[in-house]
């Protein structure tokens, strides 16, 4: 092992003065903590709900939430809600991603296109999707379209940014190599350009996914007759805290799963890449 690396493992000095750093030897918390965190949360929650400090229907014990979950799953309500939400997400995300990739690649590849399109892009970025909900309602009504459009908008912008950065940052050398070897345009795209832009593109796609999931649930809170958000809203109006909490938990779990799943996908696609 090199001397530089060895230095990191030097034994503690004999007469060590009090460390003036922020105890950085403890910087990396043990990994089992990450796995334990939801359990700790549930445990604390359980204790709180049974402590008698709050009425049972204000701080609902985890078991009740679990039972509600089972019940709603068994009678088909939950699968239907989830299915509707995820379907909207998929459709809107697909549309937004394609639009975003097209826009981003165009802006990245052509300085002309960038000059024309970037300012409008930046303006759109300043308009938070949530704030556009009333405007979109007027434009698209309160059916499925408006939700899909909202998801598409929420997706398109981060994806476009990712694609733009990916294309912009292709090392000039790559394209030169392609030219030297007289590689055809199709091959050049799939073997040189696409792999080079994938990391930044994937990052944009991943950001877009979490963002659009949030936007969807928010939209469903306001305008829907089914879906996870709507289920929560209904729970709220009926003062069914267990349903609301179930929705909260599911929103978080699905968001987490989407993000983690996407990271796995990302790793599969960019395997073997130099950092």
């Amino acid at each position: 092992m090199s001397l530089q690396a060895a230095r990191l493992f030097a034994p503690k000095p004999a007469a060590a003065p009090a460390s003036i750093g922020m105890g950085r030897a403890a910087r990396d918390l043990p990994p089992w903590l990450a796995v334990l965190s939801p359990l700790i949360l549930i445990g604390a929650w359980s204790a709180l709900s049974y402590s008698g400090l709050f009425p049972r229907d204000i701080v609902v014990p985890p078991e009740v939430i679990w039972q509600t979950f089972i019940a709603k799953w068994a009678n088909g309500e939950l699968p239907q809600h989830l299915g509707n939400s995820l379907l909207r997400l998929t459709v809107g995300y697909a549309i937004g991603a394609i639009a975003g990739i097209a826009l981003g690649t165009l802006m990245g590849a052509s300085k002309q296109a960038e000059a024309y399109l970037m300012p409008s892009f930046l303006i759109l970025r300043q308009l938070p999707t949530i704030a556009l909900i009333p405007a979109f309602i007027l434009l698209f009504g309160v059916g499925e379209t408006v939700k899909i459009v909202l998801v598409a908008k929420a997706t398109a912008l981060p994806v476009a940014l990712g694609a733009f950065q990916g294309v912009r940052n292709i090392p000039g050398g790559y394209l030169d190599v392609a030219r030297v070897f007289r590689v055809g345009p199709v091959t050049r795209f799939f073997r040189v350009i696409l792999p080079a832009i994938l990391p930044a593109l994937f990052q944009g796609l991943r950001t877009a996914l979490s963002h659009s999931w949030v936007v969807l649930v928010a939209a469903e809170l306001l305008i829907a007759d089914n879906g996870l958000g709507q289920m929560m809203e209904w729970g709220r109006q009926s003062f069914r805290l267990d349903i609301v909490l179930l929705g909260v938990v599911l929103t978080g779990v699905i968001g987490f799963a989407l993000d983690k799943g996407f990271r796995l996908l990302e790793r599969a696609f960019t395997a073997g890449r130099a950092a």
Partner: protein
Amino acid sequence: MAFEPAGTTTKLAITGLAKNYIIDRKPLRVLENINLEVADGEFISVVGRSGCGKSTLLRLISGLENGYSGEIRLDGEIIHAPSLDRGLVFQDPSLLPWMTVRENVAFALSNVRIAKAEKTERVAELIDLVGLKGFETAFPKELSGGMAQRAAIARALVTQPKVLLLDEPLGALDALTRVRLQNELQRIWLKHKMTVIMVTHDVEEAVYLGDRVVIMDPNPGRIRRVVDVPHPHPRDRTSPALHTIRDQVLADLTLGKI
């Protein structure tokens, strides 16, 4: 401003120094049986291949690292922690980016009990000494590599240390800047005649500046030979005598076992 007057007394005495690192629970011998006596006002250069422990040696002398066997004595007192009577300049100037040059140099005096007026005076003197007058309010980001290193030297000297330790201070600079700073170092040292120990990978630099050149071997780090450079300062870089010594040292370094 008076530094300690030069003499022939021993300033720094290293006896039987050895150090291990523990890696994967196995000890790695980094330094072995280092014996060195440095006279007051001497300029010692240390050369050696990577992995010979020369940086570790310097860090031990500075007190940043600890846990060694043997003795390191400065003016007869054992060293085991950093102290203001030993200054250290790293290869990376490591100036605090959010402080101006003046603040960076003044930071060294944070724990020196002297009057504020004297602190201000000292800081200004040192900045002038290293040739950075006019850049007192510049941030490190505005400085070139050479200038930053000068500021680091000023910072190390403002506490008036008995020993100045330099760990490959000019290693990250381009050749021209390096030559210029070598001359600067010599000028500053000649003016104040403090004891200096400089680690470098540049043999020419080591021979040009040092009164003695310590040649180290790796695995484990130990002193192979100490070469005298008995020429008066300031020296002529082009002198054939210096070149001979340089060639000797180089031959020594390249001949050793891998």
